């Protein structure tokens, strides 16, 4: 029997690269291959982890996160200070305003917090709102005006971007465009943003995600589809992808509760791996930036990225 046995590596050549977004000190994107396939890309672009800090700690916030940060967790400025010696590449400040009675006062407070934070760190910053559309429509433009250097601001959605995006654009920041797990909506939204005059090289896609075991599979596949389309030449889908894995992972029972079957194992190991694995599966599906919450988990995933990217 004749056997064909000469092997040639089945390399792909994609003409279109993922857009490079300048995060102010770091770049996201730029590769023209799927993640981790180093010999196919002309430019190797290491995925990034951003550590997320909240300005308000809800009452049901996971104990493990509270334990790690200690009292600092209740004070975002202190939290940022203590984050500075932890080798993070970037920080996400989540202005999750809780008291909605007096939004204006909360926004004022957020602006003051932001001014302080800008003074104490020069890490690339992502300034994130509440994900409540009306609140963000007021809050995000104010943050954009307050930030005196280039930041990445979001997320904007189809329902509120008209109030936010023009100001983010004028202030020279990048924007995070969020759509609900649907590649067509993602593309359509990017087109809308560019029609508004937003430079496509300053857009980052947030396709939305679920945590491990809670809808992660849908995000996984949408990201894979976005990347396939992007590399094959769709210039309204070839922006870097960001996913907020920390938020999703830490709202699960798996990351929070000790009151579980013994088969679920040790809480700390489980919670850290829950967040880490939510992150790694997003990275293999194609995410460029993962936003995480527990510094231990960040360390593990950063180590993985460092070793796989050499």
């Amino acid at each position, binding site marked *: *029997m004749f*056997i*064909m*046995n*000469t*092997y040639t*590596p*089945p390399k792909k050549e994609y003409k279109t690269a993922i857009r490079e977004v300048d995060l102010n000190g770091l770049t996201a994107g730029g590769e023209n291959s*799927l993640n*981790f*396939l*180093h*010999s196919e890309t002309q430019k190797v672009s290491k995925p990034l982890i951003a550590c997320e800090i909240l300005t308000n700690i809800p009452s*049901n916030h996971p104990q493990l996160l509270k334990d790690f940060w200690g009292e600092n967790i209740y004070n975002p400025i202190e939290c940022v200070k203590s984050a500075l010696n932890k080798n993070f590449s970037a920080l996400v400040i989540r202005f999750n305003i809780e008291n909605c009675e007096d939004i204006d006062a909360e926004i004022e407070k957020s602006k003051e917090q932001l001014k302080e934070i800008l003074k104490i760190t020069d890490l690339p910053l992502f300034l994130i709102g509440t994900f409540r559309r009306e609140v963000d429509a007021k809050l995000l433009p104010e943050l954009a005006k307050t930030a005196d250097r280039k930041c990445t601001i979001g997320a904007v959605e189809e329902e509120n971007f008209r109030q936010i995006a023009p100001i983010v654009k004028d202030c020279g920041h990048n924007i995070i465009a969020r759509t*609900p797990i649907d590649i067509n909506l993602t593309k359509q939204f990017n087109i809308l943003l560019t029609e508004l005059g937003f430079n496509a090289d300053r857009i980052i896609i947030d396709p939305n995600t679920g945590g*491990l*075991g*809670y*809808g*992660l*599979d*849908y995000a*996984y*596949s949408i990201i*894979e*589809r976005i990347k*396939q389309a992007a590399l094959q030449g769709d210039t309204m889908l070839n922006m870097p992808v960001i996913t907020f894995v920390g938020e999703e992972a830490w*709202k*699960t*029972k*798996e990351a*929070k*509760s000790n*009151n579980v*079957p*013994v*088969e*679920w*194992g*040790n*809480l700390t*190991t*489980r919670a*850290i*791996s*829950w967040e*880490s*694995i939510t992150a*790694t*599966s997003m990275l*293999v*599906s194609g995410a460029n930036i993962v936003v995480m919450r527990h510094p231990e988990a960040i360390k*593990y*995933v950063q*180590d*993985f990225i460092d*070793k*796989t*990217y*050499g």
Partner: protein
Amino acid sequence: MKLTGLQIFKYLPGSKKEPQANCKKCGFPTCMAFAMKLAKNEVPIEKCEHITDELKSIFEEASQIQQAEIPFGCAKNPVKIGNETVMFRHDKKFVNPTCIAVKLESSDENFDEKLNKILNYSVERVGEDLKISTLALFDTDKTFEEKAKKVAKSKLPMILVSENIEKTTKILDEIKDFKPLIYIENSSPEELAEIEKKYNVPVVSSGSSIEELVNNSAKFIENKTQNIVLNLKNQSQKSLIENLTYIRRSAIENKFKPLGFPVIQFTKDIADLSQDPIEQGIWTSVLLCKYANIIVLEHFDEAIIYSLLTLRQNIYTDPEKPLQIEAKLYPIGETDENSPVIVTTNFALTYFTVVGEIEASNIPSYLAITPSDGMSVLTAWSADKFNGEIIAKTIKTYGLEELVKHKKLIIPGYVSSLKEEIEDELPDWEVIIGANEAVDIVDFLRSYQKQQLLNL
């Protein structure tokens, strides 16, 4: 990828309205019926006299197996690996879930205890029993034989890892109807092919590069053995994902026969990977997504295994069909007229998550499930499949107005905005806004129930 009936039909006389259309010579009433049978491989292609050469070659090309399916373990109930047909799960559901295996050395001091732990591990998630698929038994002392027999008796699928051909074949002589996967280090393809043929067991073909695997495969195929599993040794973290992707791509997209077999990856073969369970878990999660069919973990850690089994469930579900449960009233525990009424959607994940928490609270409750096309709470709400009207109708058709006397209804916290809408539709009822996340349901229900009892 296989052709569908419709794709085949396009090449038959019936679709082109040619004179022979539906001539019935194949034994089927129409060309369409024949096409459907052919797509399922239930009839040989030669049955139709009017097949064109074009269809014949397209069909042969399409039905060529991309990746072999290899079963091993107990003859009656083997675990199967391989037979994948796509690179991405959005193209088509992945076929055989990754086999998560745990290593155990024959010399392990706590062998029996560890074996039992692995055997008994079982965890329910979204209505599915998740278990450890396989044990990798390493030959580290003279009790290897005895331990192998013990595992075979337990019926847990097993990988035998040894350097010793005699020891291994002696075991195979004794466990006749149990077919382990055989890994003999430093042995030639010819020797392994011999074993495969004599015992009808799959064997691992290993190499340090893809080229080496290809050369080995050629030798196996020459020796008429295709019951093999590929293994890459000594892998750097930097190149492993790419190598596994290339093996899978060669098989799936290029139908490159020498690599058309499933792959086994040992975490111990990954350079600079520590024994830390989380670090091992992270790499395993990546291997699970990117193209290993069997992964052998160094240690058994419940938390890591549970995370990985969850990920596997996610990656191997059918992306086309969300798991649904029947929309009806589920009484949880010994319900009575004072039991709380809770409403949520019929997405299996949502249902099982919520039921677990209600059970944990020990408060018997009625769980009313709405017909919401298998969507999660917020997804269904956005798609207008979980609204005031649907919820009100659910409460009425399930007869809850007679079953309980309190007329209070608890809804998921994320849809608090539905309160008014529901109360408009159900004027006698009061809508109570529950917790956002299931993890907070126990506390919520307990304090709610306490409050209700005080009011009685």
